[in-house]
């Protein structure tokens, strides 16, 4: 096990888990909520077929609109752009239920390791996004990410509905078992490496990551204070090289690096502003090298 419990973040994650799953009684009846809130897209992987979910999943909505209307899904893109411009990828760290589950598994696992075993696999999510979210739904009329990949959908919708609703059990086939296998593989790997789905596969995280550099919520590094001690990078749940990769595509802005920055230095901090950027405050690789040589 690694590090202290990130208590504040876990409390926020738990609150968002409860807000995004208020209709718990539907798990028993095997039904889903069908009210007006279903028109609202969240910024997390919260399957709209989950019995307890009041909101719609943006990735599911994108695939459906592309598949059904062959048009740009402006509504879901609008929601994601809205969230992304304010928060960047922070919803991954603070609001995503599947990210929360991976955090819990890793934190209490006896097999956890800080080593990133598959660094090049980070780029897989580009393929997942292009192929399964955009191309196959457009070309073959199949919501491919939901149908073949999404482990959150399997956990939140597939399992509970199939268990509670006998009429759906006849539909179980190869795809169901493939998705179960994928879910188990991801959860088991979460015991070894932190947030593998977010690191390597999540198309929603990739999309929100596009806004990371420009979002109003930024992690800032005071170059004058930073000693390049590397403590922040050792604790990063996404396995990033910090502080150089702060606010990059894969940064989920969880704030672990801020918490781990030695108390006497405090080179890292939060900033939320419409009117400022962090470009000049981030240390460049050259200054890092110079500092180490000195």
């Amino acid at each position, binding site marked *: 096990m690694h590090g202290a419990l990130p208590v504040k973040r876990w409390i926020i994650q738990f609150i968002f888990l409860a807000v995004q799953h208020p209709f718990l009684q539907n798990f028993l009846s095997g039904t889903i909520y069908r009210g007006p809130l*279903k028109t609202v897209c969240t910024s997390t992987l919260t399957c709209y077929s989950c019995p307890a979910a009041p909101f719609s999943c943006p990735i599911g909505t994108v695939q*459906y609109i592309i598949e059904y209307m062959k048009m740009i899904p402006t509504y879901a893109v*609008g929601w994601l752009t809205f969230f992304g411009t304010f928060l960047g990828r922070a919803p991954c760290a603070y609001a995503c239920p599947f990210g929360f589950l991976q955090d819990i598994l890793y934190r209490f696992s006896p097999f956890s390791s800080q080593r990133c075993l598959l660094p090049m696999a980070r780029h897989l999510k580009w393929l997942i996004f292009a192929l399964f979210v955009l191309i196959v739904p457009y070309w073959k009329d*199949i919501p491919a990410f939901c149908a073949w990949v999404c482990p959150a959908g399997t956990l939140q919708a*597939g399992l509970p*509905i199939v268990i509670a609703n006998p009429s*759906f059990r006849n539909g179980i*086939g190869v795809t*169901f078992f493939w998705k179960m296998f994928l879910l188990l593989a991801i959860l088991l790997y979460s015991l070894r490496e932190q947030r593998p789905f977010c690191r390597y596969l999540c198309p929603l995280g990739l999309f929100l990551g596009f806004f990371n550099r420009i979002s109003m919520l930024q992690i800032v590094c005071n170059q004058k204070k930073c000693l390049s001690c590397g403590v922040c990078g050792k604790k990063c749940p996404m396995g990033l090289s910090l502080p150089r990769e702060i606010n990059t595509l894969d940064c989920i802005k969880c704030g672990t690096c801020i918490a781990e920055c030695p108390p006497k230095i405090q080179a890292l901090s939060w900033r939320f502003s419409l009117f*400022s950027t962090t470009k000049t405050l981030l240390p460049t690789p050259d200054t890092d090298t110079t500092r180490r040589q000195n």
Partner: protein
Amino acid sequence: MGNIAAVVVRILLLLMAILFIIKAFFVALDNDGTNEITLVRVNGSTFCQSCMGLYQ
């Protein structure tokens, strides 16, 4: 200069996001007057065979 560009981009993105969301309520996609929000609601209110892993 960098700051001004970032602020302009943020404001443009927010305006675009709000326009995209509003458009879904008012712009009809076919002759029946179906708009994007109707599709999202219908989609969100059905048991999704794909999500459940029952897609054959």
